[in-house]
């Protein structure tokens, strides 16, 4: 993994329709740090994450990666970001291992050995299911497959939207230790979650501070 970050956000505002979701949002995330973004439903957490990973444009504000605006970096920025959203991005017609192999070929930078896929499946606890079409996997197993993509792609900046949904207790533990390994190897992680999880050194970030009081 190449040296990463820091990721800085300054004065970010998002307007959806005629509603200001949040304004003047700023934070900084350095290598090896994790940020847990919290807030009640409907506050704009997903909107914030989609803006941060470049899927949608914020109304105003400055997002920088390694000191350079992400809009100028364009594909060089997306090459460093791995996003797991509400949707898993798992194709039901492909088997679990095919899903990961294809992700590696499409989004990865160069061909990796098949053991990378096998290893990633093992680390999310899907070893025995590698040849099963993804549509026969349960919600939690699909979620784990989506998270295994993070391990295959080996990108420095993880943006995770409710990564713990549908996961059982053992998988929650496994995922928080995977995030821990990622940050201690110098990676960055941005996590939106309602669920409490155990991760040493994670900082809390209350989105509500940047939102107008609503009726």
């Amino acid at each position, binding site marked *: 993994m190449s040296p990463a970050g820091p990721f800085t956000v300054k004065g970010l505002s998002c307007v959806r329709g005629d509603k200001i979701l949040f304004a003047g949002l700023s934070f900084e995330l350095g290598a090896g740090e994790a940020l847990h973004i919290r807030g009640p439903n409907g506050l704009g957490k997903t909107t914030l994450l989609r803006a941060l*990973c*470049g*899927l*949608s*444009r914020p109304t105003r504000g400055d997002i920088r990666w390694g000191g350079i605006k992400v809009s100028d970096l364009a*594909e*060089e920025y*997306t*090459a460093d*970001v791995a*996003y797991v*959203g*509400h*949707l*898993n*991005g*798992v*194709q*039901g*017609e*492909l088997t679990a291992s*095919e899903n990961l192999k*294809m*992700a590696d*070929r*499409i*989004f990865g*930078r*160069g*061909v990796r050995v098949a053991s990378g896929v096998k290893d990633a499946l093992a680390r999310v606890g899907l070893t025995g299911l590698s040849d099963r*079409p993804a549509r026969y996997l349960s919600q939690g197993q699909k979620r784990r497959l989506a998270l295994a993509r993070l391990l295959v792609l080996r990108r420095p900046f993880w943006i995770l939207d409710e990564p713990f949904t549908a996961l059982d207790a053992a998988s929650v533990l496994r995922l928080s230790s995977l995030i821990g390994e990622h940050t201690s190897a110098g990676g960055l992680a941005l996590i939106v979650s309602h669920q409490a999880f155990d991760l040493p050194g994670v900082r809390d970030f209350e989105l509500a501070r940047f939102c107008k009081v609503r009726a």
Partner: protein
Amino acid sequence: MSYGMFAAMRAVFSRELLVFWRRSTEIMTALVFFIMVTTLFPLAIGPERHELMLVAPGVLWVGALLATTLSLNHLFASDYQDGSLEQLLMSPYPLSALVLSKIAAHWVLTGLPLALLSPLLAIQMALPMKAVGTLVGSLLLGTPILSLIGAVPAALTLGVRGGGVLVSLLVLPLYTPVLIFGAEAVAASAGQGFASVAHLSLLGAFLALALSFAPWASSAALRVSLD
């Protein structure tokens, strides 16, 4: 970087083929629809060879057009629903290149089989043998244009309620030039007009135009739809 881009384009292409191969009913619907529609005409008009021959180029081309329109929904819709489209937007490679791969796979699975199947249906429509070659040629040139142009409204209507019908309404007017020159080329070589080469050249020009603009336009449309 560019080597990686071509590898990614190849990977998208083979992933599309694999996914659609396992979901083969969707390819078959377009093909069977093409066969059914063109079969209805001899039944309705009657077995009069001369009358059939007159309408054959138009019927075969309209059939191909409608069958392609029917299949356009599959281009992005399921990827949109399962989130793989979102992931595609976050690829480190230019989106228009990856979209071009998706369109190419769509053509291989719909347009190409239509073109290869058309000689059989041409016999049924009493099209003279000398025009069959032109029919296949015009479809081989024309159906990629249909897939390319169709990708733009397919991308624009993602997430819109009743998007399927909307795609047809948006795309059919755009298809008319292709229909006119495609059907004319076949009619010409069946001996009802000027030489077909002129029409085929124009189809070729359309293809070049669509190749340069459609991937770019549909990737811009995708970014709008997923914003």
